[in-house]
């Protein structure tokens, strides 16, 4: 029997010195996300959309939106890649400018509803008792009332009060977030309820940690992945809602273009039949943007919440 002490010692020391796989959750997530090619494609598209909508118009000679009656209703050509509308404005430029609005409104209303929803959801789930009941009842109330009529009323109110076009944008964002927060609050609250009962929370209790420490140190980091997923996916929904509002003439009004009101403007017999370049591009823009967001958000959900692994 040969005993090689040196080799054994070498083995052990090599094992000890090998760096531990201590990549953070963030880096691990990025690595896993990259494997999901569909999600990556979605993300790339979203990035592309943002870039061309915000930067694109800067390169366009038509960015000032000047009315040019001589050029009205031109089909797509070399000068106007997507043709012109009834006032001679370049459709492509307007499409990109509309993208700015639609994307901004979508993101902003999502951010707002997430903030409200998360704060209320955490408060509700953590403190329970009366405040929980109160918040949940209000959320139930908002759920019970159909959202479309509610949005229409708010839209009509804006028209009646003759809100200036610029401010309409902000009001629409607020309106959408008021509709959106109950859903977020419910999800966050149920997550809180589950987390609260976990053993490490009991440990934190035993250690005598203060409420705030428990909330921010332990519970919030665990809610975070859920928030990222909800946030991403609800952005798509917000963009869709904004487009519906604009389509019904109750959201952002012309001349400020949004994808929704561009379609609405073309929703008459002649334009519909004979000038598809007026309404198909904005519709496609909404569709592709939202699908990219959904695919990306789904990829996020796969890696951040392995329990709800719905795609793989």
């Amino acid at each position, binding site marked *: 029997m040969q005993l090689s002490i040196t080799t054994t010692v070498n083995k052990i020391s090599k094992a000890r010195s090998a760096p531990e796989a201590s990549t953070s959750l963030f880096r691990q997530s990025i690595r896993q996300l990259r494997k999901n090619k569909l999600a990556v494609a979605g993300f790339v598209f979203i990035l592309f959309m943002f870039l061309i909508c915000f930067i694109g118009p800067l390169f366009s000679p038509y960015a000032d939106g000047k009315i040019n009656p001589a050029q009205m209703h031109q089909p797509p050509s070399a000068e106007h890649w997507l043709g012109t509308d009834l006032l001679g404005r370049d459709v492509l430029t307007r499409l990109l400018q509309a993208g700015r609005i639609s994307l901004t409104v979508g993101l902003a209303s999502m951010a707002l509803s997430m903030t409200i929803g998360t704060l209320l959801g955490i408060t509700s789930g953590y403190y329970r008792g009366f405040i929980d009941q109160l918040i949940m009842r209000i959320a139930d109330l908002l759920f019970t*009332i*159909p959202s479309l009529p509610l949005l229409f009323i708010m839209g009509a*109110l804006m028209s009646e009060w003759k809100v200036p076009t610029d401010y309409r944008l902000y009001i629409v964002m607020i309106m959408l977030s008021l509709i959106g927060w109950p859903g977020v609050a419910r999800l966050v609250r149920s997550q809180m309820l589950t987390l609260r009962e976990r053993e490490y929370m009991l440990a934190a209790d035993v250690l005598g940690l203060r409420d705030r420490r428990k909330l921010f140190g332990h519970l919030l980091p665990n809610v975070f992945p859920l928030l990222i997923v909800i946030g991403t996916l609800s952005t798509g929904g917000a963009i869709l809602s904004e487009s*519906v509002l604009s389509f019904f003439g109750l959201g952002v009004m012309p001349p400020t273009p949004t994808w929704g009101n561009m379609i609405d403007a073309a*929703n008459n017999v002649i334009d519909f*039949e004979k000038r598809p370049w007026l*309404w198909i591009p904005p519709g496609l823009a909404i*569709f592709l943007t*939202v*699908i990219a967001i959904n695919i990306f958000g789904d990829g996020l959900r796969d890696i951040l919440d392995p329990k709800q692994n719905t795609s793989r």
Partner: protein
Amino acid sequence: MRTYLLRRCLYMLLILFGASILIFFLYSLTPGDYVDNNLNLSDQRKAELREIYGLNKPILERYVIWISNIFQGDFGYSLAQQRPVLDLFQDYIWNSFLLASAATFFTWFFAVIIGVLTAYKQYSLFDTLVMIGIFAAMSIPSFFIGLFLIKLFAVDLKLLPPGGMITTGSRAEGWEYIKDVLHHMILPVAVMVLLGVGSLTRYFRSNMLEVIRQDYVRTARAKGLKERTVLYRHALKNAMLPAITLIGFELPGLFGGSIIIEKIFNWPGIGQLYMSSFTVRDYPLLMGFTMFIAILTVLGTLLSDILYHASDPRVKL
């Protein structure tokens, strides 16, 4: 069970109360009402009408009148149509119901089949294609796809009618009438199914995926049961269970009409009624409709709960 139902009903009433207050005061906020907006009336007539309809009374009084009427089954009186709101509902609701029931049926039909199939054949090409399709269905704006399909099938290909419930001016009866309506239903129902099938398929798929991974499915296979038995009796039964709760939530959609679809396809349903009332500010009808949907939503939730408790032996009330 008794106490649970009682508590639930009480809670439902409370929520409906709150909803009614919210609805009433929201609609009251919007300035201008039917009388004011009607250009045909002289100022004097307007003042008279306001007296008759009690529009000059203080807001609280109007609310109490409205809500107590509702309790007695009186949803108000439409100013624009000069008929009780409930009667109007009767006329239009069944048109919406027609569309919605067909759409719901087909949506569930396809969602169950496709969802179960893709879960069973996970990772296959079929699965990937379906997933992309699902994403597409969930991301498309309803009005856009409606317009697009109309352009494609009605305008360009001239295969299907562009809108309405029956061919304009048609006096068809009996079977001819039914055929005409069905012909007109194809596009709107197709759009509704397209929009709804995405998320429902996803739901069934993920349920099925989860269930297939369960230990008891492995046991069923280990018992040497036929794969079909394993799938249907063991897996599907469990996967469908939570879906029972969804049935209740379809209730408001079934009778509430889709405002968007009915506008695009010019379908004489209750959604269209709502939109036309909206433009003239016919508040009794608007409030009545909104309240009606709220009641359906609450009932639907209750139905879901009851159905779930009745079907899952593990859940005790």
